[in-house]
């Protein structure tokens, strides 16, 4: 970082003189690279840095925030002067900066130390598998996104904590074309690790699956709209919990009273076979951090236990409104955002059912093998999710592939609709966008069944 600890202390010493009661500096230096391959050619490699400082002052829950990429003492003090003008009260107390806690990311192959041609060779192998798997594949896409984010958080309560976040993500895509019809297949895996992600995950198998998925879509029928039971498969299927329940459990929604879960701790909010967590420190996980963006160690937060609401995800500022401590859940995309409560690796815990039994016991419904994206309005609880790969279930068996299914519902009802939970928990990775920007998160669940949900689609009798 460009400023010394002494300089940072000197800046913080100025932060509270006009009456703020908390001041924080968030320094960031991020290097990222995207390597893109299309149809067996390396089409682009782009590099970038994100570098700057965010300054935050609080008084109670009132906040002022400023950011700049000019990281000099004079510039930060200038920004601070602007922010301090918002307060006019007795000076707050500044504690001396403490010492940073140590951490070990155990990165085996830091992306800076792997030659570019070794990366492109590996990616070319995978891209070739997609392209050559079938003559109907007209576009094979393989991207490697690598990011190393170095941060330093210092505040007037004495926190002085650095962290290093190392992310690798591989995105595979396929476009299949038959006559006029074009369909897409897509899959991605991301981890908190370096180039060793290629030793951890079988991307060749994933390449075949993605190509196959695009081909299968060519024969998929439009699903007939209606209300029906839906079995949502494990892994990225957990996005339903993330959107419908995770966001409304964030303190940003709770503190303003804008969530159906306000005041419901200790009450039944889900069917009793549902337990759920948000864990900030799953080893190697895409959604993991050693320390959150306020410098607190991340932790495993129990959200729901046997259907009973147990807790929320809380950051410092909203915690002040709610009179509770942070749960290590404060996150931001970069120094350009003030932090707020966000998820890390959120999941529904394993149940006792077997996936095969759930399908077998379903007379008629939709098997949502893969979900695409979705959104939720935390204030109303209304959500939607696209099904990117789906099959009909008829008399306990998977039958036709279907496309175009969209699930909609309300977050406060949906958890009660879960009547089966399998024992095959897996995670999927995504980028979650909200007030404090776009951040890497895991979603996760075992296979679950919803008794009924509205399914939109194009099909007609």
């Amino acid at each position, binding site marked *: 970082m460009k400023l010394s600890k002494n300089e940072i202390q000197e800046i913080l010493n100025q932060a509270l003189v006009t009456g703020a009661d908390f001041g924080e500096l968030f320094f960031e230096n991020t290097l990222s690279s995207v390597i893109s391959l299309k149809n067996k050619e390396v089409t682009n490699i782009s590099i970038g840095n994100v570098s700057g400082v965010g300054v935050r002052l609080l008084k109670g829950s009132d906040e002022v925030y400023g950011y700049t990429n000019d990281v000099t003492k004079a510039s930060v003090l200038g920004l601070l002067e602007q922010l301090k003008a918002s307060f006019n009260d007795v000076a707050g107390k500044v504690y001396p900066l403490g010492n940073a806690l140590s951490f070990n990311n155990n990165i085996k192959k830091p992306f800076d130390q792997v030659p570019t041609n070794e990366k492109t060779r590996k990616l070319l192998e995978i891209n070739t598998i997609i392209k050559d798997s079938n003559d109907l594949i007209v576009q094979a896409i393989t991207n490697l996104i690598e990011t190393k984010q170095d941060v330093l958080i210092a505040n007037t309560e004495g926190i002085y904590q650095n962290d290093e976040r190392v992310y690798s993500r591989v995105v595979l895509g396929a476009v299949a074309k038959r006559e006029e019809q074009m369909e897409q297949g897509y899959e991605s895996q991301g981890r908190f690790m370096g180039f060793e992600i290629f030793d951890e995950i079988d991307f060749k198998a994933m390449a075949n699956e993605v190509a196959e998925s695009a081909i299968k879509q060519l024969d998929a029928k439009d699903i007939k709209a209606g209300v029906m039971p839906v079995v949502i498969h494990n892994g990225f299927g957990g996005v339903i919990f993330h959107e419908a329940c995770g966001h409304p459990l964030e303190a940003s929604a709770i503190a303003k009273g804008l969530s159906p879960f306000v005041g419901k701790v200790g009450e039944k909010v889900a069917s009793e076979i549902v337990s759920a967590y948000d864990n900030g420190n799953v080893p190697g996980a895409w959604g993991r951090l050693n320390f959150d963006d306020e410098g607190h160690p991340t932790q495993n937060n129990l959200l729901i236990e046997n259907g009973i609401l147990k807790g929320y995800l809380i950051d410092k500022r909203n915690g002040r409104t709610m009179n509770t401590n942070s749960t290590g859940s404060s996150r931001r995309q970069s120094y350009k955002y003030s932090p707020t409560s966000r998820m890390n690796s959120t999941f529904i815990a394993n149940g006792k059912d077997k996936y095969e039994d759930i399908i077998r016991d379903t007379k008629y419904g939709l098997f949502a093998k893969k979900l695409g994206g979705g959104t939720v309005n935390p204030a109303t*609880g209304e959500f939607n999710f696209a099904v990117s790969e789906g099959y009909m279930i008829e008399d306990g068996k998977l039958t036709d592939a279907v496309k175009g299914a969209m699930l909609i519902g309300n977050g406060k009802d949906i958890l009660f609709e879960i009547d089966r939970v399998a024992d095959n928990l897996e995670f999927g990775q995504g980028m979650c966008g909200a007030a404090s920007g776009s951040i890497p998160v895991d979603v996760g669940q075992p296979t679950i069944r919803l008794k009924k949900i509205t399914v939109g689609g194009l099909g007609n009798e």
Partner: protein
Amino acid sequence: MNKNIYQNWIDKGLSKGLTDVEIYAVERTSLSIDVYDGKVEKNEVSKLHTALIKGIFDGKATKIKVEDLSYEAVDDLLDRMLDSLKNITANEPALIFEGSNAYPTVDDKVFDFSKVAPVDKVNLLFEIEEKIQANEFINKVETVSYSESESKTVIVNSKGLNLSRHHTYATVYAVGIYTKDNQTKSGLSYQIVKDFSDINSEKIVLDNIKEGVSQLGGKTVASKIYPIVFSNEMFGNILEVFTDIFTGEAAFRHLTKLVGKEDTLIANPIVNLIDDPLFEKALFKVPFDDEGVACEKRYWIKDGKFTGFVHNLKTAEIYKTKSTGNGFTVGITPTNLYLEPQDKSFNEVISDIKEGIYITDLVGLHAGVETISGDFSLQAAGFLIKDGNVTRPVDMIVVSGNFFTMIKDIEAITNDFIFGLSGIGTGSVRVKGLTVAGE
């Protein structure tokens, strides 16, 4: 002063072996204020000076994004850029542009929002909050927000291009949460202005209440095919998602079904989709794109016929044509794209609908749309149209269709033309029939 820095970077890049270098630099300051519950809840200021550096080596091009402008950091990134360029294998045109012969003149207002006293901005927000709060169905005013931004953009390159732009604008928006009989709905209203005195707080209040309250009591409908009227704002959102399929990049990458459809009818002949950089009703006039190419008015669809792909420098070279001035840093995008309205009022257009749905809200546009196949399935809300009149609110439905089929089935474009939040201009649009999932 800054131009000297840029020239240094260009020189540095050339000395490392790059054959061409271009700098796209932005200096931006911003202010945003949120009020909540009668208090300033958040006050944010920023000052950024960032750059994109494009380099060409051995006929290959790439860009680096620079926020750390120190000599060492830029030097390191230029080395990385060179390494990247040596590992790119695709033979695609790599170009920078010396400049167009002439650029359209734009008499754009550059209002200095920082001259308005902060207290006036805050009071404006309090006034809006208070008036929305007075509504009988209000549960909470979630936020009322003001933000202003000033940006100065410079494009310079080793071929002598030297252009700059200067923009200021402000946005005001409000989110109100309305409740009745245990049902909660949100209202969003906004205004984007280029002069502080243009802010119409009364309209922001009324729009918010109208949107929130009118949805209360919403129920679903029976699942079947209905004639659909999309509001101007929502049809703009749909068009925005599909702009990419009109680009040379999508054509070259096999990511659009429009390849081979040039000069053929792809939409109802009443459809004229026009990109006009200097369109009088648009908020921003755009004299040149981010590659320094002069922008020009162009039909994307004329009388229902697809007129051909739009290009940046690279895809123009691939298709042996000229850039259409749509090369922006985010990709090939329109400037001021709009669907030409017909001379028909909204009421006129719905008058013969026996039972249909007027859609005023679509959620999850990026998740529920496949731009290649054109299929979409979207959470929606709006109103039931009964015997030619807009009647009760409708919510929690999914509307599904296919974009390519739908634009052939456009029956009318009403004269309630706006440039919405999507940045695309259109009136409300009636389409023959789409599948609706309800109960």
